[in-house]
């Protein structure tokens, strides 16, 4: 695929004037790359000539590139080609190295590493692998070279020599990232000039630095190491309602607006479920600025869980059909035959898993000579799989609930769930999540979750590269804020005088908005006269209303126990509300005829408040106050 694309690109250059084929971002010299560097899989995205980010495939046609390196004799396999070597050559295959970045040897949990062993005595974690090195060249002798026609060198001397190689984690990372860079360079035709690399949400700054250094060693022009959750938010253009709407990236909730508009201030959960781990981030979006309310992770919940479920399922199926005992996944003290069967089936079920998430039909799994010479050929449909995986789904839901609770919020207050990571592609999981939140909350996967991080990285790199136009330096912008910034502590909203209520009618500035913040709202005014507004500080709460279910008339046939249990419970409807707490001030404008009242509220960096109100089109009559 990549070859086709690049060939087409060259043909175009030959056909057209070169000007026709330039990249949209300003000029041909500006080429953008985004790298999603996951623990198990990586993906790369570039900005195409229309200015849109696209996830590209590498030379092998893979968009999801396995983070694996395998040393086999003189050869080195990197990417998806290295994965099968885990079966026979696990000792010399390196996987899961990303999370070790920036750690010392002692900090690493050695029990989880199933691949090449880590060297015990090095400061930075390093792998040792057995390799074959080319033979040392015979001492160059000009005479013998001249007489080489007669004296054939000893064939034994040309045999590769077995040796061991020590490679540190940063070196492995550089090696792997450089192959990603090569793929992108092949696609673009030129080396990318700007790049953003993603890092997991829980990476420490030391790990960030280690990753950045490894990427720079690979020859990548790294502008920023970006949090995966932030990359997802940027990829979805969350908070930039118009652009997001025009690109059709708004999620469609079960109820309410059908992906037509987006709130300016909202609480978003980024749920990233990869191959090995689950990361949940709760983010306050205030007009495109993202502040982190809470984040959490679960290292055991990942796509691998689904693999294990499938392994179990198919091994049972195998035993049932062939009467050959096989219990997978097997422990470390299993027989060699079991281990081999395990490795074979792991590779097979991965395909099954992918086809399950991609298509609604049944997915097959076929392995030749799984154990004792018996073949396995079976299939599983989605319903069956969802049944198998319901426990995993529930665990994901629980984790989500836990992280949201830790942020002091309720699931009902979440305005959107953004999905990332290939494991969230299962529709069963998406349905489960949408049941947890309010029906107006979309569970969005409008961008392929396995590509969204890379796309977000590419977009962020584009945004940073465009800073050059404003004569701003990327470093200045990124260092302009410290780790934490001042944000509004409470929502600021409106009360209409005369309406007795302890709830705010509308929230103008939500809590968690980075200072300084400015908001403008328009309020329609029905008739001429003096209109006024009160500004209040509020407090978010969740109103729980219990609705007694209308007793369903039981039909005689319907006597299943489960239904009865559900019916006995009252349904709770949770609605987020904002209670008024403290009055901040008021404005009044004398209206001449119908129109709109424009209200501007600014909270300054020092916490001061500026409020202005005027009739639209009549800015001479402004009522304002400052605190």
């Amino acid at each position, binding site marked *: 695929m990549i070859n086709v694309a690049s060939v087409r690109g060259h043909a175009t250059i030959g056909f057209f004037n070169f000007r026709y084929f330039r990249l949209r971002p300003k000029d041909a010299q500006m080429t953008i790359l985004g790298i999603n560097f996951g623990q198990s899989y990586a993906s790369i995205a570039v900005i195409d000539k229309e200015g849109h980010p696209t996830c590209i495939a590498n030379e092998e046609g893979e968009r999801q590139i396995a983070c694996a390196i395998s040393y086999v004799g003189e050869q080195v396999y990197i990417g998806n080609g290295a994965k099968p070597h885990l079966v026979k050559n696990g000792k010399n295959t390196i996987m899961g190295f990303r999370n070790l970045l920036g750690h010392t040897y002692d900090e690493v949990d050695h029990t989880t590493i199933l691949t090449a062993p880590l060297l015990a005595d090095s400061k930075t974690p390093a792998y040792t692998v057995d390799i074959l090195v080319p033979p040392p060249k015979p001492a160059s002798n000009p005479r013998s070279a001249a007489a080489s026609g007669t004296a054939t060198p000893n064939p034994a001397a040309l045999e590769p020599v077995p040796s061991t190689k020590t490679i540190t984690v940063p070196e492995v990372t550089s090696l792997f990232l450089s192959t990603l860079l090569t793929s992108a360079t092949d696609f673009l035709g030129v080396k990318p000039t700007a790049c953003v690399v993603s890092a997991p949400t829980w990476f420490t700054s030391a790990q960030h630095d280690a990753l950045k250094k490894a990427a720079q060693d690979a020859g990548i022009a790294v502008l920023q190491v970006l949090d995966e959750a932030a990359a997802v938010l940027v990829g979805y253009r969350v908070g930039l309602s118009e652009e997001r709407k025009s690109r059709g990236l708004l999620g469609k909730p079960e109820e309410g607006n059908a992906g037509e508009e987006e709130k300016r201030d909202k609480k978003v959960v980024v749920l990233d479920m990869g191959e090995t781990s689950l990361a949940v981030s709760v983010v306050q979006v205030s*007009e*495109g600025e993202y502040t982190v309310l809470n984040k959490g992770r679960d290292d055991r919940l990942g796509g691998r869980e689904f693999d294990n479920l499938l392994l179990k399922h198919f091994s049972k199926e195998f035993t049932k059909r062939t009467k050959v005992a096989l219990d997978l996944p097997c422990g470390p003290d299993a027989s060699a035959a079991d281990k081999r069967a395990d490795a074979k089936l792991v590779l097979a079920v991965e395909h099954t898993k992918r086809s399950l998430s991609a298509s609604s039909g049944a997915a097959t799994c076929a392995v030749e000579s799984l154990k004792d010479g018996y073949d396995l050929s079976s299939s599983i449909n989605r319903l069956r799989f969802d049944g198998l995986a319901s426990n995993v789904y529930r665990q994901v839901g629980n984790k989500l609930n836990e992280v949201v609770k830790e942020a002091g919020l309720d699931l009902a207050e979440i305005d959107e769930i953004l999905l990332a990571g290939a494991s969230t592609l299962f529709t069963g999981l998406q349905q489960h999540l949408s049941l947890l939140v309010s029906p107006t909350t979309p569970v969005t996967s409008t961008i392929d979750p396995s590509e969204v991080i890379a796309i977000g990285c590419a977009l962020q790199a584009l945004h940073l590269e465009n800073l050059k136009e404003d004569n701003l330096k990327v470093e200045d912008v990124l260092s302009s804020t410290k780790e934490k910034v001042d944000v509004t502590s409470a929502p600021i909203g409106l009360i209409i005088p*005369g309406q007795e209520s302890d709830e705010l*009618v509308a929230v103008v500035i939500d809590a968690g908005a980075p200072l300084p913040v*400015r908001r403008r709202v328009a309020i329609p005014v029905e008739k001429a006269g003096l209109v006024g507004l009160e500004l209040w500080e509020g407090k978010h709460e969740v109103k729980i209303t219990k609705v007694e279910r209308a007793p369903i008339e039981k039909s005689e046939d319907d006597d299943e126990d489960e239904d009865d249990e559900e019916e006995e419970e009252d349904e709770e409807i949770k609605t987020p509300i904002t209670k008024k707490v403290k009055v901040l001030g*008021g404005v009044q404008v004398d209206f001449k005829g119908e129109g709109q009242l424009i209200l501007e509220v600014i909270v300054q960096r020092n916490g001061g408040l500026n409020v202005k109100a005027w009739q639209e089109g009549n800015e001479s009559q402004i009522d304002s106050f400052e605190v």
Partner: protein
Amino acid sequence: MASIITLPIKLSTVPSGWKKPTTSKPSNPNQLPIYPAGPSFIGSARRQILQRSFEEDDKFIISAKEKQLAEKEDKGDGSLYPGLGEEEEPSHVLSQDPKEWKKQDHYAVLGLGHLRYKAHDEHIRIAHRRKVLRHHPDKKAAQHGANDDSFFKCIQKAHETLTNNDKRRQFDSVDWNIEDEVPDLKSLSPEQFVDVCNKVFSREGRFSKVQPVPEFGSLDAPKKEVEGFYDFFYNFDSWRSFEWHDKEVNEGSDNRDDKRFTEKKNKSERTRRKKEDNTRLRVLVDDVLALDPRIKRIKAEEKAARDAKKKGTTNGVPKALTPAEKKAVEEKKKKEELEKKEADKKALEASKGDREAAKKAKEAARKNLKKWKKSIATVISSSNYFQPEGTSPSATIIEKQLSELDLIVDLIEPEQVKELKEKIEKVENGKSAKDILIETVKSIGEKGQDKFTEFA
């Protein structure tokens, strides 16, 4: 830029007695980590670094946006299709029937309405590519679910026509979107006239087989150019043809005669139109030539040049002469010329008379020679051939004497013969006459030596 969001509430006039509440400070800010990502973050960082207030930043953003828009407009769609520009696609173009391709404006379909016959092959190729990308039926089906490929067919027909050289010429020949009206030339000022003619003839020139076509030129074009222009357009070799107006031969009909009839009719129609067109152009060139202010100018210039030349030859310094002197000089010259002419004439006449007289005399002498010879012969015979009296001269003597007389007459000039006759008639005496003859023979000298016996 702060976007304004309309809240889903409505305000009405405040209840009486409501007063603005006293102001108080909002609660102290919290601290939260922020993701340094996204355009909004970059915007706020820019405000902070450049120390701009919200209003200043708004102005900056608006100006940047305007700049960007202006750049975009400059390019048109030009970054991808340089020099091609973007043309609107009016609904009547989009909704035309591909079956009516003879009535279709192929240039407008491809968005080349502003270029027309000036469009290069490259333009057509790129324009076609662009339209195809935009209007491909697959794309339409994906966007609107409509299975409408009629405009796509129009695009293909336009492309087919415009990329085939013959067909394109046929279409260009009858392109009804290029007006060939010529305004009333008589009512134009010279500048306007030149302007209009330049336009008209650059338009007409597109049909020329010979390229490049000379321009009409400016008001002060040299004679050579002007003549070159009219020469070119009087010998105009046009490729314009009128196959486009042909009536379709009904392919389905088996009637061969029918087909031949239509073809014949088409052919005659084509020749008629071609003839008409040639006449139209010739009449146009005639009209223009008659009204061309440059021709008048050139004629005037030539006359002046001739006059100047005349003055230059009579006098090295013609300007130093006063008119009176000029007149005198002229008169003198005229007189001299006249005199010279007359003298020549006289001389010519005189010489002519002499020659004629001489000729006449000679002829007369020749005529008289016989007479004179006869009279001499009579004198000889009357003197009894110089024989003593009473004796009759023998025949041989007579013959000898007469033949010797012939010889004498042959040898001497006619004048001398005359003198000889007069001398002999004077003496009339036999003896002396013989002496005269002998003298004459002697005067002949060597010529007559040994030839004479009687008169020796």
